């Protein structure tokens, strides 16, 4: 019996969501009175791998082979399920990241495991094993009982706190065979804006809607986001009109996010928009229409013209930063 976490890396580095996942795994391992192992695939330094012990891992299986530099859902799923078998894992945890979404379902099939995707808190473990996930695109939550011996869970980013318990992990090199049949899908190019905070992982998000009138007015949104260290998002009509890229579209048919702060400017708060952002911890709405439905779903609101309010916020933020640095 054990809990196994897949620690995904981005170009050899771990992101915060990995520490969240390991902390989550440690809490589950404690509930089940068992150990936590981690599997890593690709090129991560031994120092970084051993440091995963800080979050509760006792053992790190390192499948560090040049062959696995690029993400490959078939090969990676095969390595993770092999690790689950050798570690005798009954719970396998994977981030609900874009890569995780391609991996976890495959791992579940390989292990004949039940699978809850997008968990948002610790499972209830008693006579049964129940995982809480989002459902109906942010409009509800489902409590899913996982009945099989082996269970696969993917955890949403920003859903569990990073907890440092101390310790270092033993790093063990593993050679995992994956056949050529797993390498049919070939990565040709990776295009990544490294200077930007990625939206699904962001703790703070500044978002703009049609009320901003046109793409030329996003300068102030970006400036505010930069000052806050926030990611930028937008409503659907904004990405449909190509004012902003599709990857920024949040809502029922965009990405669902749960940052600590969601600051919406010139967004009416349609039900489909709210669906994707309503689990944000704190919601701020800036809209010139006091009747905008978004105010009903907000913690703080300013009824006013964005073109007057946002510059004032930028001023105030600059002062705030100067005072707190």
């Amino acid at each position, binding site marked *: 019996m054990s809990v196994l976490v897949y620690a995904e890396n981005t170009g050899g580095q771990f992101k915060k969501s990995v520490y969240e996942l390991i902390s989550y795994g440690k809490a589950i391992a404690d509930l089940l009175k068992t150990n936590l192992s981690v599997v890593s695939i690709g090129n991560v330094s031994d120092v970084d791998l051993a440091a995963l012990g800080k979050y509760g891992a006792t053992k790190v299986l390192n499948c560090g082979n040049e062959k696995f530099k690029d993400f490959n859902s078939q090969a990676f799923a095969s390595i993770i399920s092999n690790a689950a078998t050798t570690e005798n894992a009954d719970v396998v945890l994977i981030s609900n990241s874009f890569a995780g979404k391609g991996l976890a379902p495959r791992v579940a099939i390989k292990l004949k495991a039940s699978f809850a995707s997008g968990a948002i808190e610790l499972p209830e473990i008693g006579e049964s094993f129940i995982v809480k996930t989002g459902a109906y695109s942010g*409009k509800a939550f489902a409590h*899913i009982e996982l009945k099989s011996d082996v269970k696969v869970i993917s955890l949403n980013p920003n859903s569990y706190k990073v907890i440092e318990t101390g310790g270092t992990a033993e790093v063990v090199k593993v050679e995992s065979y994956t056949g050529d049949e797993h390498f049919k899908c*070939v990565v040709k190019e990776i295009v990544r804006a490294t200077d930007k905070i990625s939206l699904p992982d962001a703790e703070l998000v500044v978002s703009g809607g049609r009320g901003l009138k046109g793409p030329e007015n996003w300068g102030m949104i970006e400036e505010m986001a930069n000052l806050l260290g926030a990611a930028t998002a937008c409503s659907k009509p904004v990405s449909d009109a190509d004012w902003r890229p599709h990857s920024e579209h949040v809502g029922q048919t965009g990405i669902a996010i749960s940052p600590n702060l969601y600051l919406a400017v010139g967004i009416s708060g349609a039900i489909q928009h709210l669906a994707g952002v309503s689990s944000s911890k704190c919601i701020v709405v800036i809209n010139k229409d006091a009747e905008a439905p978004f105010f009903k779903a907000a913690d703080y609101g300013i009824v006013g013209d964005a073109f007057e309010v946002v510059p004032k916020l930028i001023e105030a933020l600059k002062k705030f930063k100067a005072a707190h640095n």
Partner: protein
Amino acid sequence: MRTLKKNKRGKITMKILVCISHVPDTTTKISFIENNSKFNAAGVQFIINPYDEIALARALELIEGTEGTVTVINVGDISTEPTIRKALAIGATDAIRVNAAPRDGYFVATQIAAIAKEMNFDFILAGRESIDYNGGQVPAMIAELLGIPSVSIAKKLTIEGTTATIDREIEGGKEIVSIPFPFVAGASEGMAEPKIPNMRGIMSARTKPLVVKEAVAVDLLQEIKSYDTPKPRGQVKLISPDNAGELIELLHSEAKVI
């Protein structure tokens, strides 16, 4: 793999399978019955899952002007037939309904993989997730069951011969992959604009083939015990626009988010 047929102009005639899920309209206010264990479908309008509409639109674009075919498949009871007919009206060639309630992602993927094994499609498109369970499980599960490659969140898809080039969504960007037939992809925004059926489509949909198949047996691995809905937020705290800067202070000292 199927041997590809070419039409008169020497173009490949593709055979595409598109998975269609039947979901509540996006404006639906969600509620539950039977002790919060079942979705309350009373008065709810059902639609084709928006991402599946994108997948269908792209598949139709790819076969346009060729003798290729687009088959839509849905796992559902008879109540989903209007949704399937709508997909036929939009332009699908024919349809399959696997007659069973779609219990979970594994159940649905197993049914679709069983049909795909029989029928040899060049590739399979689905939506990146359904807007009811949001599992996003089905595309990669089908691929794993068939032992073929997949891209779960595909923003762009083009075909050259028997190879697709797909933009896979990654945090903060995209990864461009090359993937040979057969494969599975989950369509995301940007791949195509959903198509609206025209009158001719609606008329012809009535007579297009819709085959009903019985489901294969699948182990029950999991079960939804109950649902709940998010707690409503307290009263919004309004800040005067003349004093907008106060917001920053509140976010720091009261909400403690900055």
